[in-house]
Each structure stands twice: as structure tokens, then as C-alpha cells.
């Protein structure tokens, strides 16, 4: 007699047995994943079409994205996929509830990874917002650059722009708080990748697609997190074991899809 928590599962009355129920649920989730794939494919098509129409702009704009943050997020998601797969396996081999803690731990780790992903995204987004790199009419980067340049001219004198290395000159001259602040700003705004944006047409199209696709993906990360937390709560109570681990498995499938989409998003947005 075990002292672990274990709830025996009873299948719904319109199914003949647990296995038919589990198999049906799985097919149902795969069909749902298919709808998600088709949903995202619209954005991928929009990406492709706009990229083909503005190849130069695309190259310049995508160089603005921080591939290091993107890579970090990729590693985080892949790790979370690994841990959720291990959680499913733990539930699959949970005989008497002895693996309850392991399942909970692995699921918790997955959720933490998801949270880290969102935090990294938050930093990425706030940089973009700060730099005015947004969609459509909200693409204010050129205006912000112009304004910053004026402020720098005012604070450092217009001749600063004639210097060979503007940043170095600014760094050596900066003394007041305003000057230090402007130096910090120009370090960001003055980067060659960003400045290159001023010379291409319609870069707001890239950022529009960037925010749409990563935004939609981010929403799915939140949904996936919520699902996993819900499953985590029930696994603490011993609901999942070798004869019934369907929710863990299906929640895992959803999470893997979120990872799959990012596996394609990452190179498409950050690397090519």
C-alpha cells in the first residue's frame, strides 16, 4: 500500500475504455495543432511575400534584431521542450505516485523557461519601442534620430558630426548629465545597423511583421504556460500515472508546437 497520492481515472461513459478515450483525445489535439500551424502559416506567407518584394530592406532591417537574444530564447525553448518531454515520460512511468514530485519539478522547470523567454522578449520589445522601430505609422525611428541629432548638436556643438569617430569624440567630451545621457542614447541609435535603416524604403513593413508574428507566438507561450501550470497543479494531487497521463502528454504536445514555431521563426527573423 503506497503512501503516495494517486487518483484512479475513470473514462467518460460514451467511450468503451481508457485507451479509446486517450487515443481520441490525442487525435483531437493533433487536429488542433494543425489549426495552429495553418494560423501561423498566414504570417509566414506574409513574411515571404513582403521579403520578396523588398529584399534589400529586409536584409537591413533584420540585421537590427539582436541574434544573441534570439539564440538565448531558442536555447531556452529547446530546453523547455526537453524538460516537458521528460515530464510526460515521468507520468508514463509513474506506477504508484512515486514520481509525482518529479513530474511537478519538470513541469515547473518548463514553466520557468517559458517565463525566461517572455522576459527576454520583454527586453527586446522595449528596446524596439524606445528606438521607435514599430509598425506602420508608428515607425518613428527617423524622427527620433533627427531629434537626437539636434539635441547632440546643441549639447556638443554642431562640429561633432565632422569628427572621424563621433562616439569617441562624444565620449571624451561628455561631462554633464545631459551629455552623458545623450552619449548613451547615441551609442544605441548610432549603431551602423540602425543607421542603415534610414537608407531603405518602408522598413516599417518588416517591423510590422516582426511584432505580429512574435506577438502571436508570445500569446501562445502565455497560453502554453497557463496550460502547463494547470497540469502542474493536478499532478501535485497525483492525478497522472501510467494508466492516465493524457493531459500531461497533450499539454506537452502543445508546448512542443510553440517550440516548433520558434525553431522556424528564429532563423527567419534574426539570421537571414
Amino acid at each position: 500500500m503506497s503512501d503516495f497520492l494517486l487518483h484512479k481515472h475513470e473514462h467518460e461513459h460514451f467511450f468503451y475504455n481508457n485507451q479509446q478515450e486517450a487515443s481520441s483525445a490525442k487525435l483531437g489535439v493533433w487536429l488542433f495543432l494543425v489549426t495552429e500551424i495553418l494560423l501561423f502559416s498566414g504570417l509566414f506567407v506574409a513574411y515571404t511575400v513582403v521579403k520578396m518584394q523588398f529584399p534589400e530592406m529586409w536584409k537591413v532591417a533584420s540585421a537590427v534584431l539582436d541574434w544573441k537574444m534570439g539564440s538565448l530564447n531558442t536555447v531556452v525553448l529547446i530546453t523547455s521542450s526537453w524538460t516537458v518531454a521528460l515530464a510526460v515520460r515521468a507520468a508514463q512511468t509513474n506506477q504508484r505516485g512515486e514520481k509525482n514530485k518529479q513530474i511537478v519539478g519538470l513541469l515547473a522547470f518548463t514553466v520557468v523557461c517559458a517565463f525566461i523567454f517572455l522576459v527576454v522578449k520583454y527586453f527586446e520589445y522595449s528596446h524596439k519601442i524606445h528606438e521607435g522601430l514599430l509598425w506602420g505609422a508608428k515607425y518613428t525611428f527617423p524622427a527620433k534620430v533627427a531629434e537626437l541629432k539636434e539635441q547632440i548638436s546643441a549639447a556638443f556643438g554642431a562640429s561633432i558630426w565632422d569628427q572621424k569617430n563621433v562616439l569617441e569624440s562624444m565620449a571624451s567630451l561628455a561631462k554633464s548629465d545631459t551629455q552623458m545621457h545623450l552619449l548613451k542614447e547615441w551609442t544605441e541609435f548610432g549603431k551602423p545597423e540602425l543607421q542603415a535603416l534610414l537608407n531603405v524604403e518602408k522598413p516599417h513593413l518588416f517591423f510590422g511583421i516582426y511584432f505580429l508574428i512574435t506577438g502571436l507566438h508570445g500569446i501562445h507561450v502565455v497560453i502554453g504556460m497557463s496550460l502547463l501550470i494547470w497540469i502542474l497543479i493536478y499532478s501535485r494531487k497525483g492525478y497522472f500515472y501510467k494508466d492516465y497521463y493524457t493531459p500531461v502528454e497533450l499539454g506537452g504536445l502543445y508546448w512542443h508546437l510553440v517550440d516548433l514555431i520558434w525553431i522556424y521563426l528564429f532563423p527567419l527573423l534574426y539570421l537571414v
Partner: protein
Amino acid sequence: MSHHDTHHDSHDSHDSHGHVTALSVYHGIFAALLVLTFITVAISRVDFGAANTLIAMFVATIKASLVALFFMHLLHDEKLNVITFTFSLLFVALFFLFPLVDITSRGRIDDLTDTYSLEKENKKIEAHKQFLKDNPKWDQANKDRINHFMGVEAGQK
């Protein structure tokens, strides 16, 4: 109300616990995915020109296949789930294909079907002018019909 287990043959019979993948496989796939991520980034530093995107997609597809086959258990799953997933990719491909055909062939119908030639067009115009000369009644009837409608348009509010 009565309920009894009838034997049914409507789906594959796996053992009810599903296939349990070895831990080492999971760890191995995880390692492989990390390596492939590294490769993805490294390869992107080299410029293959037009092939950049294709190569990146190729590597991404390898990673995606590993996730799908092993983490999502498709390798050992019922065929139906595999078919469902693969089928959807076909439709995604369709969704890509036709708009791309459209975008890449706009304004190029003549290149693509080799139907246009300036001499042929000029010949057609000359032949039509000759036809009008030879058939003044047809020409006039046509002009009358057009004027009738045009006259009506002129009177519109």
C-alpha cells in the same frame, strides 16, 4: 442503463501505456538540438546569397523533425496522428506556393508564355482597319450602338 464492453475494431491496438522512450534518447535529442542551434547561427554568418534562407530552413526542418519524431512521439505513434500532421504541411505548402507564383510572375505573362510579339499585334491592327474599310455598315452599326449607350451615360445624373 446498461453499459458493456463490446469489442471494437475501429482503431489500432497499441498496448494501453504507449511506447516509453528511453531517457538516453531524450537527452541525446536535446544535445543534438543544441548543436543544431549552434550550427544554425554559425552557418548564418556565411553568405550563400540566395540560398541563405533555404539552408536556414533546411537546418530548421531537421530540428523540427527531431522535436516532432521524438519529443512529440510521432515515431512510435498511431499512423493517423502522423498523417494528420504531415497532411497539414502539404496545405501550408499550397498556401505558400500560389501567392509566390503570383508575385513572381506579375507583368511577365508574355515572357512566360511567349505569346506576345510586336509584329503579330501590328498585323492584327492592320487587318482590323482593313475589315472596317471593307464593311462600312458593320462599322456604322457598331458606332451607333456605342453612341446609344454613350448618349445615355451623358444624360445620367
